[in-house]
């Protein structure tokens, strides 16, 4: 009982933090019909700076890390990405009356990773002084790409079963390359390489690091407004997607937390690292995944998978960050 109260108190304190507060603020604005707009070039600038910062920070940490430290977590990340997609196909995909392509695409987004959710996790961890290996954000592509690829392969198989056109079947390697060429992953990889191969410390310390938190607050505003705006698109969509959008992040985060806990016991993976793994698993791609799926699974209805991810998956994943932190503080720290 005391434990439950502690848990609640820790949880409530988190909602006072600026990151989640701005998310809620964005939703409220949209709900009240505000005409406030964040200009698109500003939004792109914010995402670019966050991705370069995440990449550079992880890259600089990788310089000092041992390949053996990272191998297992990377494997865990990839496994999580694939397992979440397969799990999604089994749970939603097998329900009657739903189109296979829709459920596969939705599961694909939930297996992939949201950069905004990851950034929010990093900032909230830092505010609470819960440390993590600085290279953990570098696990992003290890979870993101396998998840999207897995969804695309499942969609191809479904199409083949349905006797659909198989001639245009895209090659996997090409999809990986194309995905890495997208703006978001390009920026992340560029940051990683700069951090790994050069010494960006002066510009990192004076620009990317200090601006990170503030720009994230504006991104949360956009996320909140967008989440509310897309809610209406969910109206025509099967209720099951709403259930998946709400429960998915919690289940996936728990999976990530569990796997991270295993790593913690096995290799001493830090509590903060466990939280970030859970956050990535809980998150669903809202910036970089959707266009990949639009091209590769054109028969799926974007209103379904984007609506489910943006309006439910991302807010729930963001709001669940305090949950993993509270769990970590209670279970993993001495």
């Amino acid at each position, binding site marked *: 009982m005391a434990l439950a109260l502690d848990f609640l108190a820790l949880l409530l304190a988190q909602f006072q933090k600026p990151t989640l507060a701005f998310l809620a603020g964005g939703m409220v604005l949209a709900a009240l019909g505000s005409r406030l*707009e964040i*200009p*698109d070039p500003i939004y792109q600038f914010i995402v670019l700076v966050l991705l370069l910062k995440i990449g550079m920070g992880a890259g600089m940490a990788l310089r000092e890390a041992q390949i053996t430290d990272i191998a297992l977590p990377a494997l865990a990340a990839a496994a999580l990405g694939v397992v979440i997609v397969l799990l999604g196909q089994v749970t939603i995909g097998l329900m009657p009356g739903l189109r296979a392509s829709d459920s596969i695409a939705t599961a694909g987004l939930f297996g992939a990773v949201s950069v905004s959710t990851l950034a929010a996790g990093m900032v909230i961890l830092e505010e609470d002084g819960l440390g993590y290996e600085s290279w953990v954000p570098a696990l992003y592509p290890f979870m993101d790409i396998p998840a999207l690829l897995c969804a695309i392969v499942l969609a191809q198989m479904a199409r083949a079963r349905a006797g659909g056109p198989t001639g245009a079947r895209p090659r996997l390697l090409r999809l990986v390359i194309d995905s890495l060429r997208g703006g978001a992953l390009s920026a992340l990889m560029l940051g990683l390489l700069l951090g790994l191969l050069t010494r960006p410390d002066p510009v990192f310390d004076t620009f990317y690091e200090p601006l990170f938190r503030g720009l994230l607050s504006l991104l949360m505003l956009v*996320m909140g407004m*967008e989440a509310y*705006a897309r809610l209406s698109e969910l109206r025509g969509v099967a209720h099951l997607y709403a259930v998946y959008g709400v429960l998915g992040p919690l289940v996936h985060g728990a999976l990530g937390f569990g796997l991270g806990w295993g790593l913690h016991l096995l290799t001493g993976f830090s509590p903060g690292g466990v939280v970030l793994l859970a956050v990535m698993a809980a998150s669903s791609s809202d*910036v970089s995944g*959707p266009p990949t799926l639009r*091209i590769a699974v054109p028969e799926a209805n974007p209103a379904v998978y*984007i609506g489910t991810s943006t309006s439910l998956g991302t807010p729930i994943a963001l709001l669940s960050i305090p949950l993993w932190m509270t769990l970590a503080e209670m279970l993993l720290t001495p």
Partner: protein
Amino acid sequence: MPSPAHKLTIIIERLLKPQVEALLSEAGLDGWSIFPGGGRGTHGVHRAQAAQLVREFAIVKFEVVLRDRAKAEAIAERLTQEILAQQSGLVWLEEVAIWRTGKFRS
């Protein structure tokens, strides 16, 4: 001194831009213009200037002026059949009178 020509307008989401450009290049066109925008359609609202999470879903309009009507129609056919088949997008054609005809190879 104006001479008759045709203007093909193509409205798509940014993610199809590379494919449309490839098709226009293959068709031997030497020029086109592109205008960013937004819109509303069966796939919901695309904002014209405000942040939207996915950059690739922004609307862009191609305007292609060419003299050869048959080629214009052929491009429109290929577009709607190949690229736009499962994607959102519109194509229309208008009559125009152009100057500087020397600038138009097709």
